[in-house]
């Protein structure tokens, strides 16, 4: 019996396209739109996969026109603003969303690549443990974060948001990398356990609040640090150059983006051990 990835490769016929049949503000839960679920299925079977339209259980075929087969590449188009959980728990393959997508996109994913060509809603990549998410536009709140009340969020992988993001980006992160090339709202990296959050634009207030470990980096304008953070030094972190080289080589960040050499380093949060850090580009303060 083959593993799911092998079965998917065997069945792959160039990918599947799902086109939303109508425009509607009624929330759709579409966690079935996932390469793992599509593996071994033809269009008819894909159409029979479950979904929720509001509180009513329906099938994907009720909501989307489905064309093609295969799990290696799923393309989703149409009005997806209210469509949640695309790529939920995916472990392989590629999902491309044309346009703006709803919340919980890529939540719990552990592998593969998810590309959103517009904006993404809240909870993008929540609890992500591997793979890569790229959002060409902006994202909502809680990028790579944990759900309310939980203590550990993202555990691995990379999220890149080319626009701006809301509050609590990377909150409760345990591992992984979140890069936002635009601005972020307040509480970026709040309660982080580890991992890294890089912000190319303006860093919102109270970054790293309650962090235990981990790194928040601001390349643009930054607020004064919380009183529970202590300035340590101004220096050129070598590990940053490692990260930036990786991001440039993998095509996620272009030359000239996230530039910076000298950083002011603040350790904190002293209310939680003080082993975290907020690095702010020295020229921006």
């Amino acid at each position, binding site marked *: 019996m083959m593993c799911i990835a092998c079965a998917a490769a065997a069945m792959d016929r160039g990918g599947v396209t799902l086109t939303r049949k109508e425009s509607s503000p009624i929330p759709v839960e579409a966690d079935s739109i996932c390469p793992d679920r599509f593996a071994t299925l033809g269009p008819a079977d894909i159409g029979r996969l479950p979904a929720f339209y509001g509180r009513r259980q329906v099938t994907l075929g009720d909501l989307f026109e489905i064309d093609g087969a295969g799990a290696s590449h799923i393309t989703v188009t149409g009005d997806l603003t209210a469509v949640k959980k695309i790529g939920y728990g995916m472990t392989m393959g590629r999902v491309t969303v044309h346009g703006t997508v709803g919340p919980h996109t890529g939540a719990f994913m552990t592998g593969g690549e998810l590309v959103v060509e517009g904006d993404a809603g809240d909870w993008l990549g929540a609890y992500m443990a591997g793979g890569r998410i790229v959002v060409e536009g902006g994202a909502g709140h809680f990028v790579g974060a944990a759900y309310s009340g939980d203590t550990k969020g993202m555990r*691995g992988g990379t999220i890149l948001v080319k626009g701006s993001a809301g509050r609590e980006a990377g909150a409760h992160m345990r591992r992984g990398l979140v890069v936002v090339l635009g601005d972020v709202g307040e509480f970026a990296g709040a309660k982080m356990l580890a991992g890294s959050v890089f912000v190319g634009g303006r860093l919102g207030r109270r970054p790293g609040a309650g962090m235990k470990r981990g790194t928040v980096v601001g390349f643009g304008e930054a607020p004064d640090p919380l009183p529970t953070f202590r300035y340590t030094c101004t220096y050129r*972190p*070598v*590990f940053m*150059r490692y*990260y*930036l*080289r*990786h991001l440039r080589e993998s095509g996620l960040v272009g030359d000239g983006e996230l530039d910076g050499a000298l950083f002011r380093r603040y350790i904190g949060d002293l209310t939680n051990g003080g082993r975290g850090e907020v690095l702010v580009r020295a020229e921006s303060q």
Partner: protein
Amino acid sequence: MRVNGVEIEDTFAEAFGMWGTRLVVTAETLEWARTAAASATGFATSIIGCGCEAGVNELGVGDGTPDGRPGIAVLLFTMSRKDMEKQLTLRVGQTIMTCPTTACYDGLAGGEERLKIGGKLRYFGDTFQRSKLLEGRRLWRVPVMDGEFVVEEGFGISRAVGGGNFFIMAADLEHALAAAEAAVAAMRDVPGAVMPFPGGIVRSGSKVSSRYKGQNVSSNTPYCPTLRGFEKSELREGENAVLEIVIDGLSEEAVAEATRVGVAAACTDGVLRISAGNYGGSLGQYRFALHELVKS
């Protein structure tokens, strides 16, 4: 067979299996990376007395470094994994970490095994060290006085080849030395191969026997020109100086290529013969036949 009038003896070099590794050392300037590399590969000519054999490889024009800073590759060779772990821990800790602005990364793609080196050196940080994990590579940031020493958690090691060699017999020392220098200069461009002796050249080649009880190694007396007449000499008339080049490599191909390039470059004015050292082929796992290499 002759190359540029120099006889290439129909013999072979006998080489042995070893363990090898490759580190990439970066720094703010290439000079500091080279300084660290020179320290790390010092006193590493022979496993007999130094614990390991080591050398450097300049990085090619297209070779980037993990952090984009100037860097250089350091290659180490030992007889066992245990020795490798000990040598890496000592050398990275005492010579690379101590050098200003350096960082040290695993530079061996596809190593057969991994040794935890940065993962041990991190304790120098006295609980203030931090780890960063990106795409499966874990780095340790150890606080030091100039900022942070970044070192990769583990380094890959692989089976390698040590003890490739060839001898340059010349009419006098000046011509032997000039030929050996030319050979080493050419061989330095071969990636994955190093010549661990000073300047890449051995003047005191050895044999695995001795007239002294309890001593296993002694001067390679059959090749010593001043002993012609006392000892059964391997030297021919007119050969008044011999220099040897020893080669270690991460692969058999690297040692072969370095030998080929070196032999070709050593066939210069005043050199009479090129030969190689072996034990009859009964000890080493690898043979590098001079004629085959020169013809290729």
